[in-house]
C-alpha cells in the first residue's frame, strides 16, 4: 500500500510569532480514513493549508504520494489534494453553483466538455442534480455544504480533506454527507482526512484518529484514543455517548469484548456477548457498582 500523506517535523508560526504547529508528524496510507481531533485553535486549518500547498512548508516536509506538495505546479497540486473548508459561504464565491464547481477544473486547464462532465458528475455524487443555475444565497446551509464538497470533487483529488463537514447540519443532511464521504472512500479509493468535533460520527468516518494540539498528542484506533480518559479531558475532547454508556453498563456486569463506538457496533457486540452467555445477560448492583459508575462519569466529565 502506498503512503498518501507523509508529514515530517512540520513547524509553523503565525506572523506574530505564535507557534501554530510544533513538530507535527503524520503518515496516512492510501485509502485510509483519518480523523484529526483537537481543541479549538489546535492548528487544524493551518495543517490543512499545508496539505494542499496553499501554505508552503519551509523544508520538503509535506509529501503527497511521495512528491513534495510545495514544489508541485498549481494544476498538479489541486489534482492531488482537495480541501473542503468549514464555512460553505467562503467556498462558493462564484455567482452560480455551476461556475463554482467548474472553477477548479477550469484552473486545471481542462477542455469545456471535460469541465461540463465533471460538474455534472460532482453534482450527482452529492445529490444536487439540477442545481447548476442556482445562486448560493437561495440555498440552504446543508445544500451549500454539499455544493462546496462538489466544488472540490470536480477536481477529482486523490486525497480529500474536510474541515468540520458535519457541523451545523440537520440530522438528515449530516447522514447524507457521511454517506457521500464513505462512498468516496470505499468505492472510489479516495483517502479522507477529516477534522471534526462530532464524536458520534467518528466510528463511521475514522479508521484512525490523530489528536492535534499544536503537536500530535496521540495517534491510534478510535477505541484506544477514547479509552484514555486523561488524554480526552486534557485535549477538550469527549467520548461518544454510546461508548460511555457501555462503560457504565460494564459496572453493572454487562460486559462486552470491545466497548462499542456506535449504535451499529453496540448491536453486534451485545449480540455476541449475550450469545456467549447462552442467550441471557444479567445486570446487577453490588457494593461497589455506584462507586464504579461515578468513576466512569467523572473520568469523562469536564
Amino acid at each position, binding site marked *: 500500500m502506498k503512503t498518501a500523506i507523509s508529514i515530517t517535523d512540520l513547524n509553523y508560526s503565525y506572523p506574530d510569532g505564535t507557534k501554530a504547529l510544533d513538530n507535527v508528524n503524520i503518515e496516512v496510507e492510501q485509502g485510509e480514513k483519518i480523523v484529526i481531533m483537537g481543541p479549538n485553535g489546535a492548528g487544524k486549518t493551518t495543517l490543512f*493549508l499545508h496539505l494542499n500547498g496553499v501554505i508552503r512548508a519551509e523544508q520538503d516536509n509535506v509529501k503527497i504520494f511521495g512528491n513534495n506538495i510545495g514544489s508541485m505546479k498549481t*494544476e498538479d497540486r*489541486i489534482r492531488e489534494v482537495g480541501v473542503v473548508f468549514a*464555512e460553505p459561504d467562503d467556498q462558493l464565491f462564484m*455567482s452560480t453553483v455551476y461556475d463554482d464547481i467548474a472553477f477548479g477544473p*477550469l*484552473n486545471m486547464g481542462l477542455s469545456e466538455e471535460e*469541465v461540463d462532465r465533471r460538474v455534472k458528475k460532482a453534482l450527482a455524487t452529492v445529490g444536487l442534480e439540477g442545481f447548476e*443555475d442556482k445562486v448560493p444565497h437561495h440555498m440552504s446551509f446543508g445544500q451549500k455544504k454539499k455544493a462546496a464538497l462538489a466544488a472540490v470533487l470536480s477536481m477529482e483529488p486523490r486525497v480529500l480533506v474536510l474541515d468540520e463537514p458535519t457541523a451545523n447540519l440537520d440530522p438528515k443532511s449530516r447522514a447524507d454527507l457521511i454517506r457521500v464521504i464513505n462512498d468516496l472512500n470505499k468505492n472510489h479509493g479516495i483517502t479522507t482526512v477529516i477534522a471534526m468535533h462530532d464524536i458520534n460520527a467518528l466510528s463511521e468516518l475514522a479508521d484512525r484518529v490523530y489528536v492535534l494540539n499544536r503537536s500530535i498528542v496521540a495517534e491510534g484506533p478510535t477505541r484506544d484514543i477514547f479509552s484514555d480518559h486523561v488524554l480526552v479531558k486534557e485535549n477538550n475532547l469527549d467520548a461518544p455517548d454510546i461508548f460511555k454508556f457501555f462503560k457504565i453498563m460494564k459496572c453493572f456486569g454487562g460486559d462486552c469484548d470491545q466497548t462499542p463506538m456506535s449504535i451499529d457496533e453496540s448491536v453486534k457486540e451485545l449480540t455476541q456477548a449475550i450469545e456467549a452467555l447462552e442467550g441471557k445477560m444479567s445486570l446487577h448492583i453490588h457494593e461497589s457498582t455506584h462507586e464504579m459508575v461515578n468513576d466512569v462519569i467523572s473520568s469523562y466529565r469536564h
Partner: protein
Amino acid sequence: MKYPEIDKYAELDSLIHRFDPRAKIITFTLLIFSFVFIEDIRIAFVSLLFSSFILLVSRIPFGFIFNRMKPGLIFVMPFLIVMPFALDGNVLYSYNGISISYDGLYYGSLVVIRAATSIMLTLIMLGTTKMDTTMKSLHSLKVPSPFVQTLMFSYRYIFVFIDEFLSMWTSMKAKGFKVKANKHSLSIIGNLVGMILVRSYERAERVYHSMASKGYTGESRTIVKFKMQTADYGLAAILIGTVLIFIIYGMSLS
C-alpha cells in the same frame, strides 16, 4: 429574507430578455451615453418615453424599476430645486428679491430627465439578464479582469453581508438595543460597522485560501457560451439606428 436582487425578473421572456447579453451591454451603453448628452429638453423627454417603451417591451413591472430608480432620483432632485433659484436668466416669478429663472428650471429639469432615462436604461439592462450572465458578457467583451472579478465578488458577498448584518442587528435587539438619536446609539452602530469590516477582512482571507486551494492564480477563467442570432443583429441595428437619429436630430437643433 428579502434580498435587493436586481435580476429578480431576469427569468421572464421578452424581446429584451432574449437579446444577446453582449449586444445588450454595448447598445444600451451607447443609448445611455447618447441620451445623457442631449441638450434639448423636448428630445430628452422623447428619450425618456423611448426608455419607458423599452421597459414596457421588457415586461419588468414598472414599480420594481421605479423603486430602484428612487435613490438615484433623490440624489439628482436637488438640481431641480436649487438651479431655478441659482441660475440667472429669464425670470419666471419673483417675490421679495427671490426669483425663479426659466433657464434654471429648464436645466434642472433636463438634469433630472437625463438621470431618470439613464438609470432606467441601466436597470432594464441589468434586470433582463441574470447577474452571472452579465459578468460573463463583460468578461467576453474583454473588460479588464480585475474589474469584472471585483464586480462579481461584490455582488456575491453583498447577500452574505446582509445576512451577517441582520443577524448582528437581531442579536443587538434581543439584548434590548433601541436606536435613539444620541451618542450611545451612534457609538454602538459605529461598533457594528467596524465589526462588519473586521469580519469581511477575515472572510476575504478565508475566501482567498479557498480560491488558492482550487488553483486560482489571479486569472479569471469561465465558460462563455454566447452566439449572436439574426434577431440579435436586427435589434442591435434598430437600437444603434435610434442612437444615430437622436444624435443627428440633436445636432440639427443646435
